């Protein structure tokens, strides 16, 4: 009890050090201003999904839909229902790639992170250094050499083209290793080894449940990358085309489809945002170990 009061006092004390009233006001104003500038396009994007087509062509344009409608979503369904790849198929492809890619990343990255974080063996530091260096090179800058490697491996027109690179996302391993190293106490693992548990058992029953915040963080990084998977030069068949690809085709077909484009935009943006909302507090916990040691 006494301890609690002291803690509360300490907390208040900290918040007051050198906090001028003017500074607080300036800070709040800056946050409000910047927050609304950031929110404006997002709200506009949500509104567009529910705007009837004629409202896209009124002058001056309206920010909010005047007579909200679900028409755009049924138009989207009809439009894609008649196309070569039905909406349901491209939706399935995107969900499939996202789910398999994310599960694979979590499994492979945590298995690889375990010895890197907790064991001592030849090559450990070198391997981690290479992975840290690879954080610089995301998929956009290595796309063309990756294309060459894929085609030499014979991976053409296949889900694997889109899924496999996601398994090896350097950021995933980095976040997982940092979290394991700093958050899983060695004593717990040692106790399990003394009880006769083998490596895999310790990894699966002790380490994995403890690094839940880290794999939830991997989910958001991986979903964000995979959900937006668009055209790929090695995918020819229509049945492997993704949602983002179909959507970009529609968006490119002109202003007549502006409403459908709005519906698409909402579908594309809402999934990563919802995933983030569901996992936010865990992500903050996991990211607290993301710093780089000097």
């Amino acid at each position, binding site marked *: 009890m006494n301890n609690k009061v002291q803690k509360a006092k300490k907390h208040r004390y900290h918040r007051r050090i050198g906090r001028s009233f003017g500074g607080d006001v300036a800070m709040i104003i800056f946050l409000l201003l910047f927050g609304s500038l950031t929110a404006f396009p997002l709200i506009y994007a949500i509104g567009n999904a529910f705007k009837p087509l004629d409202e896209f062509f009124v002058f001056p344009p309206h920010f909010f839909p005047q007579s909200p409608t679900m028409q755009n979503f049924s138009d989207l369904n009809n439009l894609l229902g008649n196309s070569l790849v039905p909406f349901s198929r491209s939706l399935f492809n995107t969900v499939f790639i996202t789910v398999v890619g994310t599960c694979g990343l979590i499994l492979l990255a945590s298995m690889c992170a375990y010895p890197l974080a907790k064991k001592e063996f030849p090559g450990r530091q070198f391997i981690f250094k290479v992975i840290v260096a690879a954080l610089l090179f995301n998929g956009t800058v290595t796309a063309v050499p990756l294309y060459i490697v894929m085609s030499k491996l014979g991976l053409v027109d296949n889900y694997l083209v889109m899924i496999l690179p996601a398994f090896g996302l350097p950021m995933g391993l980095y976040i997982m290793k940092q979290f394991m190293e700093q958050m899983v106490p060695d004593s717990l693992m040692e106790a399990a080894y003394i009880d006769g548990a083998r490596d895999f058992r310790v990894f699966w029953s002790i380490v994995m449940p403890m690094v839940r915040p880290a794999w939830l963080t991997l989910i958001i990084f991986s979903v964000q990358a995979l959900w937006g998977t668009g055209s790929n030069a090695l995918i020819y068949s229509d049945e492997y085309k993704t949602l983002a690809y179909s959507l970009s085709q529609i968006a490119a077909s002109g202003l007549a489809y502006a409403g459908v484009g709005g519906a698409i935009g909402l579908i594309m943006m809402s999934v990563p945002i919802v995933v983030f909302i569901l996992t936010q507090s865990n992500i903050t916990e996991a990211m607290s170990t*993301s710093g780089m040691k000097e």
Partner: protein
Amino acid sequence: MASGVVHNKRTLWQQIVRNRSCYFFMSGYLIVFLLFTVIPVLAAIVLGFTNFNLVQSPGFVGLDNYVNLFLNDDVFLIGLKNTLILAAVTGPVGYILSLALAWMINELPPKPRAFLTLLFYAPAISGGAAYVWTIIFNNDTNGYLNSFLYNFGLVDSAVQWLSDERYMMAVAVIVTLWMSMGTGFLSFIAGLQGVDKSMYEAGAMDGIRNRYQELWYITLPAIKPQLLFGAVISIASSFGIGELMTQLFGYPSNNYAMHTIVLHIQDYGGARFEMGYACAVATVLFVMMIVTNSVIQKLLRKVGS
């Protein structure tokens, strides 16, 4: 001497054998990582010296690709210039903005803090929303900005935001900054929450008088690991700009005005199949990123000292 070497080798081999389960655990990830990250980067560096076109076996051409790039390829030079401008502007500004917003948000109570984190992070993960900027900056009077300016009598005809070379870079910078509160921003927020509160009290006793001194002498040194991590993320994304330019300005943009190196790689690699040439361009980009990263990491180590 010789026996010493043999002895070391044997112990190294013994260590490897003893830790074989470690290598087994890592094998799955490392195979994928090697195939789809390490080999592509190394292959790009090697193929940059060849005329590889995916059909014929590659022939060695020395520095020809690089000579052509810098002396004969005007479009590459536009891309190089734009990439450098975008990296030099959106990199540092996005980084400092992320840090400033994270720092301000950190002073708020938990609920508003969580909400504002979501709000600033949302554009970075909602690639689907970037299209609204093409409506906001649309070239005709149906564009939101044009209509706004027109109504207030600030312009008398629609401004060509997305095709007039005077405005395109500004539009690109605004949209990029809007999307730049990403992974680094999350890392800053988490790092700030983890700073040991007793350090602030100790600082207050040592004569820290205001929040800015506190930031420089206590907070920033305490989150230095996050600052280093954020810099890597910032460099990776600001040098990799390309896709967004196509979304905003189409491809190619008017007079290639918003061409970037990533788009040049895609053009030669993905459309013309001049893989050797595309790999040379990629190598130029890799070198620029690695050099920038090592300079920035050295600079950031001086924070708070």
